[in-house]
């Protein structure tokens, strides 16, 4: 019953993407008919239940860019955003899409314990998470190489652990499956104000990295990725290969879309590329552009997977299943230019050309998407999560448009404005004022303190008469009386002596 209705829907709606945007909750049903179909035979061989999507969360380590906020004790992935670790946003998002088989990859030895402890505490019974630790040199591609043997599902979803967004990973997975693509990249619109880093670059600063957004080439249906430039290539001239332009006819080149760091890969392809191209370090700058570039002269052996995994007995069985699956999928959309190209013009190619599909999932403009990859981004994201993108915070806002934990204590004439958050057990003295700021748990704040546009983490003590503006204060920091901070970042455990004034400085314990 379920299966037939789904098939009909696939047939009727050629442009499934728009539909998916509205029906995220239906995606689970959408996959349901395929699941037993594809893996029935395989399950006999492998008693373990194989998820059809395995998720790799690249949680990173202690990014130098976020110094002094991150340290050995607080890796980047546990940095609090609106009073909960940044990693929890991604994990919650995945849970919502029913993607529960996760591998969290962290860089560095020490951090994995911290992350693992936190996850096992917070997500017990909710997610099936493995935490793996890799070296720092390999980059994102290296991280995947290191955990290759843990990857068993047919498709892998790779998510950056510092992503804060409300794009449904399920929708990305669905787009990936629907096209039988080897890679699907998620794109979102560049914020109107420009990428966060561009603001600080000034003049002739040659060592600065270019503003981190992409140049993306899409087909007219906006389903396939034809060109992508990332990193330093963004600054170079755009070179579009004529073969692909010939095959597609028209390519839209956008500079207003950026890579959201949420990818779906076909596992066999990903591993093959990682094995063959040992020099590839970054998914975004090496692997993805390589796959996009070679899509019409694919060097990837797609058939390998069947032989290697199923052995001889099962291969024909699974072949049949594959055919059925692809037939179902083929009904969903008209043949893509890849298929037309592969068959050759007018359908009489001497040998079928090898092609593979690189797809995109474009998030609608209303979706929020940001990466926590700089101090600036950290402040912005905190402000957004308690402000414009408050639905991400997971908290219910009061009628004053703020969140004050019931156990927090406010002194006399103390005001907490809209778009503020006050954590559990924090205490504030008299005549304080808090505007557009996040205050963590168990902070002790004296009287006559002003906090504007700032983030204060947990267990911070602030003396009387302090003024904090546009700053980030890490956990266990002590601010003595009458400290004035403007646009500062203070590392964990730092003590600021009474009466001192700082402006635009990072401060950390030596």
């Amino acid at each position, binding site marked *: 019953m379920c299966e037939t209705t789904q098939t009909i829907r696939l047939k009727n709606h050629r442009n499934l993407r728009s539909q998916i945007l509205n029906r995220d909750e239906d995606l689970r049903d959408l996959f349901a008919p395929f699941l037993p179909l594809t893996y029935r035979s395989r399950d006999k061989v492998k008693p373990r239940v194989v998820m059809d999507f395995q998720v790799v969360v690249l949680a990173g380590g202690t990014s130098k860019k976020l110094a002094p906020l991150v340290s050995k004790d607080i890796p980047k992935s546990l940095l609090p955003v609106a009073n909960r670790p940044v990693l929890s946003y991604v994990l919650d998002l995945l849970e919502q899409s029913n993607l529960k088989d996760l591998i969290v990859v962290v860089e560095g030895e020490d951090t994995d314990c911290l992350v693992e402890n936190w996850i096992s505490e917070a997500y017990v019974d909710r997610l099936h998470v493995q935490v793996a630790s890799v070296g720092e040199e390999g980059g994102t591609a290296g991280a995947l190489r290191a955990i290759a043997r843990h990857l068993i599902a047919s498709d892998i979803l790779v998510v950056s652990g510092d992503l804060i967004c409300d794009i449904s990973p399920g929708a990305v997975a669905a787009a990936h499956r629907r096209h039988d693509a080897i890679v699907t990249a998620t794109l979102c619109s560049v914020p109107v104000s420009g990428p966060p880093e561009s603001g600080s670059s000034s003049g002739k600063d040659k*060592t600065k990295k270019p503003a981190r957004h992409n140049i993306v080439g899409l087909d007219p249906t906006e389903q396939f990725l034809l060109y992508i430039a990332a990193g330093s290539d963004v600054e170079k*001239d755009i070179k579009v290969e*004529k073969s692909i*332009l010939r095959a597609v*006819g028209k390519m839209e080149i956008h*500079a207003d879309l950026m890579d959201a760091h949420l990818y779906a890969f076909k596992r066999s392809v990903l591993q093959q590329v990682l094995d063959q191209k040992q020099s590839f370090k970054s998914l975004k700058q090496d692997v993805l552009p390589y796959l996009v570039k070679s899509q019409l002269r694919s060097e990837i052996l797609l058939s390998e997977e069947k032989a290697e995994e199923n052995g001889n007995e099962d291969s024909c069985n699974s072949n049949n299943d594959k055919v059925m699956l692809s037939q179902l999928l083929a009904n969903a959309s008209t043949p893509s230019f890849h298929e037309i190209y592969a068959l050759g013009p007018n359908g009489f190619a001497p040998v079928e*050309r090898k092609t593979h599909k690189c797809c995109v999932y474009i998030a609608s403009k209303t979706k929020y998407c940001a990466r926590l990859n700089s101090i600036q981004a950290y402040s912005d994201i905190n402000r957004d999560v308690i402000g414009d993108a408050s639905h991400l915070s997971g908290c219910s806002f009061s009628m004053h448009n703020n969140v004050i934990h019931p156990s927090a204590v406010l002194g006399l004439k103390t005001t907490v404005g809209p778009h503020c958050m006050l954590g559990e057990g924090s205490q504030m003295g008299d005549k304080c004022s808090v505007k557009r700021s996040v205050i963590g748990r168990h902070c002790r704040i004296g009287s006559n303190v002003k906090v504007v546009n700032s983030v204060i983490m947990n267990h911070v003590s602030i003396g009387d008469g302090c003024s904090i503006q546009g700053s980030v204060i890490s956990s266990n920091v002590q601010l003595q009386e009458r400290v004035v901070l403007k646009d500062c970042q203070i590392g964990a455990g730092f003590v600021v002596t009474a009466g001192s004034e700082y402006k635009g400085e990072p401060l950390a314990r030596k």
Partner: protein
Amino acid sequence: MLLSRVSFESSEDVEDEHVVESSILAVVKNKPTETMGAKKGGKTVDDVEDILHVPLKAILLADSFDTKFCPITLERPKVLLPIVNTPMIDYTLAWLESANVVEVLVVCCSHSKQIVDYLDKSKWVNRPEFSVTTIESHYCTSAGEALRLIYQNNLINGDFILISGDTVSNMVLTEALEEHKQRRQKDSKAVMTMVIKQSKPSQITRQTRLGTDALFIAIDSSTKQLLYYNDSLKRSLSLDKTFLAENSSVSSHNDKQDCYIDICSYEVLSLFNENFDYGHLRDLVKGVLGDEVSGCKIYTHEIHSDYAARVDNFRSYDSISKDIIQRWTYPFVPDVQFSTNHPTNRERQGIYRASEISQSCSAEIGPFTYIGKGTSIGDKTVVLNSVIGDGCKIGGGVLIDGCYIWNNVTIEDGCKLKQAILCDGVVMRSGSVLEPGVVLSSNVVVGPKIVVPAYSKVSLQPQPVEQDSDDELEYADDNSETLHTVNTVENGYSSSERELSEIGIGGRGFVWSKSEVDREEEWRHSVAPIPESKLIELTHKVFDEQDSDDESDEEPPTFEKEIEATFLRGVRKKIKEEDILLEINSLRFLYNMASENCASALFYAMMKLALDSPHNSPANLVKNANDVITRWGSLLKPYLRGIDDEIEVIMKFEEMCTENGKEFAPLFVQIMHLLYDKDIIQEEAFLNWANEKEQADESDKVFVKQSETFIQWLNEASEEED
């Protein structure tokens, strides 16, 4: 302006002579006085009000300036060739009139007299609100020259439509014109609007259905500005990064066709005048896109449901004829009398019949066929998908499939014709056969039972001996040409055995021989559809090509490569330093590079030389580097004018160490030290470099860390000095 003009004249002496002899005569006729009056303010084009009120003019180029329609165009200008029994120029003029154009300047070059005569007798004279002015000039051999002539005679002073006389269109121009005018109001540099239309080229033949080459263009999605235009793409389309800095999205196309209808501003003419190397109309487009200094912009207007196409070659002749018969070009279709007075009836299945046709009842006329006035068709003759002109005599048992038969053609019994063009007065004796793609020029006689092989071109004119003389023949004076014709006809009668045997007993005409290249490409521009065997062959070729051109990833010589080559040549041949510097300077201006680029490229070349010299240990490599720097270091001096230049050199070396000179990586500090010792780079540069790097990524800092002690030492040294 004066300067460019002088060079223009001196570069083309021939033309100068013409001017002196005044053999060009600009015949200006039928110019209504209202137009003159309205032009009074036209001098200042920038004036917005004027642009809006100046009556619309058009320049019609009554010459295609190519030889694609040879040998027919040896006797008749291309614009007078009939397409579905109406000369092409009539389609163009009728469209211009419908588009509210008030004055058309017809530029006639080859066979100008024929065009003038034709237009004099046509209904285009004495039309209210529509004047046709002819401009004769015999010496123009390109569209560029024709436009320069118009510019120099000051015949246009406002916006105009530039069109070639072989264009068939029914597009509504108002929208495109409005867009053009609005753009002009905002930006006087928006000089031209080009009309384009969707048309995906075939994957196999790489040409459109009009037989033109596939076009690669890039357009700004929001403003529709044209950013890139190329019809011969080598490997990849390269878009300048600056395009995206200003526009958030650019669309690149391989599925558009250039309709050759341009809405131009006055500046276009002056651009043609200033750049005397612009010959072909699209030279301007490429020139403007490649020229950032002038700042001129070209925009596109895409038409969707309207029709616009240019008869470029025999294949487009075939395609456009079919489009006309199938009424895509409405109202310019045979049963609407837009230029002639022949009443034509349209019957079902797209059959058009003019009056006074005598047709045997056993003859079969297939769908999509046109039959002209006074034509007779014999018993059991079959006509399919063809156009037959006026006054033709077609015998019995003839098969005509996909042919274009012009006026007064005689086809005797039992002939078989497939996909051929037969010009006026052709005679086919009984039983002769035309294979696909044959073109018979005027008055050719094909002898009985002769089979004319596929793609043959037969004319009464002998084939010019050399390819180059084509032009001369076609553009020769009318007088000498008629002489020629007389001669050749006689030749045709009595001429060599070979011709006779090819065309048959009593046949008249020369079969034009084809060069190897032509033979290979003949299917491309023929009226006949591409044979299936050819398609299969091409498909294989396309496949092979695909692989091969992906491999040949050849980059054009870059500035750095050239500097390196220059330097190495200097080293090998022991050229004096001043001379090397001279060469480098010229390269610098050629590529428009700053001095810092020269310094870094030169230094790179030096290090490369050290690396390439034989060495067996790192110490040896340092010695090599030392030698090179000692010997050639003075070359760097002129380019190291400031700290920034020196920093550039350090960064270049850093890049080299990480990329293709990894051997240097562990020696980074030693080389830096060397540069400091030799006074090539000052300590300040090192310190600034280190400071700049402070902000950079960890991966970028490898070399800064390596040279930490060196920097420190420098720091201390400078402090001591203080």
